[in-house]
């Protein structure tokens, strides 16, 4: 019988302790798996959202992204200049202001009002009705439509607050073209969007300002960002990768740190407990091990038996920990997403193959390290004395 088969029979012979050991490893492994998913989850999710918006490069006035950096002045001219670069496919200017929306006879609600200029690429997805096509049309997100009790085709009064001293902004009538989904909407975010020209109209000013310019590259975002930086050295052009890098430096560190701490604690916990389980198990079977050595089992063979038991417990437990960890991740993600202003489509726990590899590596190392002490006990076991003690007792 090979070593693995022998170790398997040892485990099967003691089903209660083996099952509990495996379940314990599964629970600890699930937590470890989740912490590995959490360590990069937010960044991966944010990266995914930025990519899904369809833009490769963002041009902003300062290093603060995302953040309340100064507006870009004369954004239309800027967008036209950037669009002329060979490494750029299309350019969109994006500006957001606060606005009060009100249906006739209804209460007004304060929304984030987006104005998009430039190409026809839109940073939203229409889910009912149609996209904006004519002047003075807007799209609402589902929550704003619900709060306003409005549907596509309805008219709304818009008061946009575009200046800090704007105490009585002009009122404009817009028509709702459709209901749209914005990628970065939080569950309680009230959002609306229109063209840059119509937002400027609502602000009673010339279209020109933008929060940032979003660029679709011709295929090489790095080259596009470099070309834009060369053309406008006073501005900051950053690829999605660089934007995520900024987020990694300025925010999200809390979850990365907690993930590191909990991963360390989890692995230490697993190591300690599996070591104790194996050590107690081996101590109870010293007579049996001595008998095996006496009938011809080599020292290497009995040591390998212990190692294989550890590998089987950790291996089976680790395998079970993956589906268990995935379910646990969904639960924990649901808890964390209740934080205010977290976009609906942002996730804290995101799967990546690298996490699986690290999980397997850590559990493998745990299985080996946990078996070191019991293997040492078995290797140094005095055969004759142990057999004598066993017989006497």
């Amino acid at each position, binding site marked *: 019988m090979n070593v693995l088969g022998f170790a398997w029979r040892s485990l099967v012979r003691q089903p*209660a*302790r083996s099952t*509990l*050991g495996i*379940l*314990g490893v599964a*629970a*600890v492994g*699930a*937590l470890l798996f989740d912490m590995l998913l959490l360590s990069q989850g937010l960044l991966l999710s944010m990266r995914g959202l930025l990519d899904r918006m369809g833009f490769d490069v963002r041009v902003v006035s300062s290093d603060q992204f995302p953040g*309340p950096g100064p507006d870009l002045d004369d954004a239309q001219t800027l967008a036209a200049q950037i669009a002329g670069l060979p490494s750029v496919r299309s350019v969109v200017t994006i500006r957001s202001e*606060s606005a*009060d929306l009100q249906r006739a006879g209804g209460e*007004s609600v*304060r929304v984030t009002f987006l104005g998009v200029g430039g190409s026809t690429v839109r940073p939203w997805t229409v889910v009912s009705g149609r996209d904006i096509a004519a002047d003075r049309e807007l799209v609402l997100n589902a929550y704003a439509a619900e709060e306003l009790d409005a549907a596509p085709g309805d008219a709304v009064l818009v008061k946009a*607050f575009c200046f*800090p*001293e*704007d*105490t*009585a*902004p002009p009122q404009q009538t817009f028509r709702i073209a459709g209901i749209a989904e914005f990628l970065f909407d939080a569950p309680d975010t009230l959002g609306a969007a229109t063209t840059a020209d119509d937002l400027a109209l609502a602000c009673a000013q010339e279209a020109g300002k933008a929060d940032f310019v979003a660029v679709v590259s011709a295929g090489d975002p790095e080259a596009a960002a470099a070309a834009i930086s060369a053309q406008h050295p006073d501005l900051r052009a950053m690829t999605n990768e660089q934007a995520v890098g900024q987020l990694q*430096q*300025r*925010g*999200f*560190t*809390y979850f990365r*740190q907690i993930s590191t*701490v*909990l991963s360390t604690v989890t692995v230490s*916990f697993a190591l300690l*407990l599996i070591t*104790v*389980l194996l050590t*107690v*198990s081996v101590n*109870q079977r010293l007579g049996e091990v001595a008998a095996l050595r006496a009938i011809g089992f080599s020292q290497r063979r009995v040591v390998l038996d212990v190692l294989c038991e550890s590998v089987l417990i950790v291996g089976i437990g680790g395998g079970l920990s993956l589906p268990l960890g995935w379910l*646990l991740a969904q*639960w*924990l993600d649901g*808890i*964390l997403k*209740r*934080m*205010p202003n977290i976009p609906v489509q942002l996730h804290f726990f995101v799967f990546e193959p690298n996490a699986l590899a690290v999980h397997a590596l850590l559990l493998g190392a745990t299985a080996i390290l946990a078996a070191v002490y019991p293997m040492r006990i078995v290797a140094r076991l005095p055969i004759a004395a142990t057999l004598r003690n066993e017989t006497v007792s």
Partner: protein
Amino acid sequence: MKRRTFLLALSTTLIVAFSSAQTPEPPSILVSRQLAETEGLAEGDVVRLALDAAGAGARPFRIAGVYEPTPDPMRLGTVPREVRMHLPDLLALTSDDDAPTGAEHVARINIALADPANARAFARSVNGRAPGVFARRAAATGSASTFVVLERFHLAIAVVTIVAATVFLLALTIMLVDERRETVGVLRLIGLPAPRILLQVLLEGLLIASAGALFGLALAWVSEGLINRFFQWRYNTALIFVQVTPRVAALCVAIAVPLGASATLAASWALMRRGALRLARR
């Protein structure tokens, strides 16, 4: 007169300059500890603040004190280099010279209500009476606030850890009880009834669990200081990351001791159902 000028990476791009000017007495400001440390500022220093990087229109201010910014877990990783000043001084610094008095604006006004439960109704009333002003309830302090959500997250992690620990504990106690099978058999053979032996096992379990819980608390108390010091140094913040409060300690003991004792009892239960001779291997 010694004078030096340097730039600060403040959100409003301020120019700060030391000055020994004494007259007229400049208005007072507070600077954040982090800003004071990085720029070597101290109480009593006079600094000059301006709105643009060129330092145009800079005004002198005297540092009245250094304050510790309220720690914010959502801003972890960003060092708060901030200045606080009286509102009239800020308005004087930021308003155009030709702007008529009274035309200055503020971004927001915080209001403490006599009865916070009326916040929504109050906001509705203000919105109805003051066009152009938008009033809303302050950031959620209930079930959705960041701290509450993080607390729930940590609780969930703790639950999973307890489940894992319980499973391991059961496995260990089963092995330990199994190791004492012969002793239990002999005790049964000399006449001790099963409930009496179970009581003894329960007491042993209680003692071991209590000792384990106390050791765990001691470990937590020791690591609390180390963890806080490390992360406060790492993020340059006064945020307390770990705090072992009496309530937390009591909760840990309340969970650990009954759990440990129950695991011992559960593991022994199966043993008690076997015959005394079989246990004693006779």
